[in-house]
């Protein structure tokens, strides 16, 4: 394999992709859309919270009848409430427009609902009655708790810290799963983002009738290696381009105190899990690249290749459909099959690696299987490329090509 020609291919492929406007538009569109939706969601959430708070603080005249004896008159008066004894009168006063609302508190509010009769203020605006009725009851109940600590426990959030042990050692918890799980995300993004590019990597040569000239300057294997290296560089660049804006915004918001900053100290970089994570990621990426390149080489056009492409992508993401079984029963037959079948292995094995349910020898077998399958698929892809790429207008006869 002539390294300088591999470098030439890598340089050509990377530069022309990075010079393409479509690449950057595609890279930035996803994070910008995410940011836009996230921003709208935050704004809506803040607006909704504000509305509820406003509603709770909205002053309006109301009457109430209290069978529970919990409601404190002074608090009710401060909120413009007037106590009455006859619930029917309260309803009539609302109907006549004398007051805006009437609340009937039952003898046991933990069992029976508070009955509200109120003037219609619209679907959203009517929410203020519920807010004021429950707010009055809670405020009154809080005054009956003597201990500030008990009151804090009843109204606040109770925090816990948990330490678990594995073989007598403190286990690493969720922090140990986050980093290896990131390889799943990386694999998923690489295959989804780069899949189409992998498929068209050689189809372009075929559709443009460039193959014959190319194959007299570089071997099919060297060309494919160059293209795969370029795909990795382009894929990583695209992931950085997609993640960076979100990460930068998150950093800025954390600095501004708008969101809570992430506690990086919980992350655990377990060398074994990291090693398996990297090997599974590379093995999986190479296998899918070789598979998609082989499909591209055997088909005359992108359109013809799309059907099989979809099937391969479904194979890659199929383990997600059994995610609950992977989480709860890693020894089940389906998880074992998915772990050792090369095209479903990457996500299954990476998930088990993250969760700590992948024994080291399983990991070794899967990695070997992935790289062996990759080598086989690369060989097939190179052969199909060599033959298929000069079959410009028809599907390749696999028997003829592989029989050579």
């Amino acid at each position, binding site marked *: 394999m002539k390294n300088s020609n591999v470098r030439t291919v890598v340089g*050509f492929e990377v530069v022309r992709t990075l010079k393409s406007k479509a690449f950057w538009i595609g890279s930035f569109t996803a994070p910008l859309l995410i940011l836009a939706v996230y921003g709208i969601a935050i704004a809506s959430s803040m607006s909704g919270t504000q509305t509820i708070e406003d509603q709770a603080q909205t002053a309006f005249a109301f009457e109430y009848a209290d069978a529970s004896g919990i409601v404190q008159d002074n608090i009710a008066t401060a909120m413009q409430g007037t106590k009455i004894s006859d619930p029917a009168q309260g309803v009539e006063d609302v109907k006549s427009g004398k007051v805006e609302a009437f609340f009937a508190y039952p003898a046991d509010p933990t069992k029976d609902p508070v009955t509200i009769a109120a003037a219609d203020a619209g679907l959203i605006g009517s929410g203020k009655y519920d807010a004021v009725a429950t707010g009055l009851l809670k405020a009154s109940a809080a005054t009956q708790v003597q201990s500030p600590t008990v009151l804090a426990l009843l109204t606040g959030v109770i925090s816990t810290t948990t330490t678990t042990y594995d073989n007598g050692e403190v286990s690493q918890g969720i922090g140990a799963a986050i980093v290896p799980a990131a390889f799943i995300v990386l694999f998923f993004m690489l295959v989804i983002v780069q899949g189409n590019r992998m498929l068209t990597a050689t189809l372009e040569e075929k559709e443009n009738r460039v193959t014959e000239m190319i194959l007299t300057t570089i071997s099919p294997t060297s060309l494919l290696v160059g293209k795969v290296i370029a795909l990795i560089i382009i894929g990583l660049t695209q992931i950085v381009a997609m993640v960076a804006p979100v990460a930068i915004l998150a950093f800025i918001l954390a600095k501004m105190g708008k969101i809570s900053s992430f506690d990086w100290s919980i992350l655990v970089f377990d060398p074994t899990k990291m090693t398996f994570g990297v090997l599974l990621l590379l093995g999986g990426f190479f296998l899918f690249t070789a598979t998609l390149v082989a499909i591209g080489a055997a088909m005359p056009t992108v359109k013809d290749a799309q059907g099989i492409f979809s099937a391969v992508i479904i194979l890659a993401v199929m383990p997600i459909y059994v995610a609950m079984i992977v989480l709860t029963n890693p020894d089940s037959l389906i998880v074992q099959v998915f772990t050792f079948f090369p095209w479903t292995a990457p996500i299954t094995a990476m998930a088990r690696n993250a969760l700590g349910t992948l024994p080291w020898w399983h990991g070794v077998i899967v990695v070997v299987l992935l790289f062996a399958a990759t080598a086989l698929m690369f060989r097939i892809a190179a052969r199909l490329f060599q033959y298929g790429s000069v079959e410009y207008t028809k599907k390749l006869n696999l028997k003829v090509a592989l029989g050579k």
Partner: protein
Amino acid sequence: MASDSLVHIENFRMDFGPLTVIRDLSFDVHAGETFGFLGSNGSGKTTTIRALLGIYIPTAGTLTINGRQFQPSQTGELGYLPEERGLYKKEPTLDTMVYFGKLKGMSASAARAWSLNYLERVGLPDKAKIRLDKLSGGEQQKVQLGVTIMNDPRLLILDEPTKGFDPVNRRMLMSIVEERKQAGATIVMVTHQMEDVERLCDRIILLKDGVARAYGTVTQVQESFGGTTVRIESERDIPPSSKYAVLTQTHGHAEISLATGVEPAAILQDLVTQGIGVSGFTPGRKSLESIFVEVYGAKEVD
């Protein structure tokens, strides 16, 4: 294998599944010569070239360039213009040329300088930064030819080089080919243009259904396809006769092949006796076009 063989093909056989495309084909191309590779569509010319260049793996036989099976590492010695033309259409012209130059072992700066010079020569200096799909078909052909010859190869393999060229560009292309010939390059030319073959080729091979039907110098091939022919310009059509066979005849121009032992003078006398006015009468050898028609049949050639 002759000592001066640059291309050597011996007992080459190519099967695609049950179909045998080439049968026991052997020939040599000598260093420095221009070799015509002739045959009708589907006769196996492109298959032979693809096998020679390692794109196809032969079923049997030996195919070598400069004594060894072709490897892409020899690309610096080769300029190949395939029948199926194409370049990276969405890339700028200059970038594409530089890419191929680098793949052929040139430095980026040398490839760039050569490409700019070539584009100037073929009248495309303003197209260097233009995407190839924005160029006309003829302009793309010129770029492709440039990519083919940019490393000054010792061996040029041109598969239907004039395909898609208008007469002006065809003349320019052929002048470039002649230049390479003058510079000592060995040229293998697959073509249907018999004028080019007669003008440029030292030796030829005729392939039909994967089998060589004729092989040698142009003269040897002409002689092997019968003795004397006569080109006649007459006021009306030449009538049939047992003394000759009419090879071609259109609008007063005819080429006839004389039967064994018949002298040209006897034919001229017969025509005059029959009252046919003859304005031109040139004895010679059978033209390659006539041989081509004879081998492949008029219908197949059309």
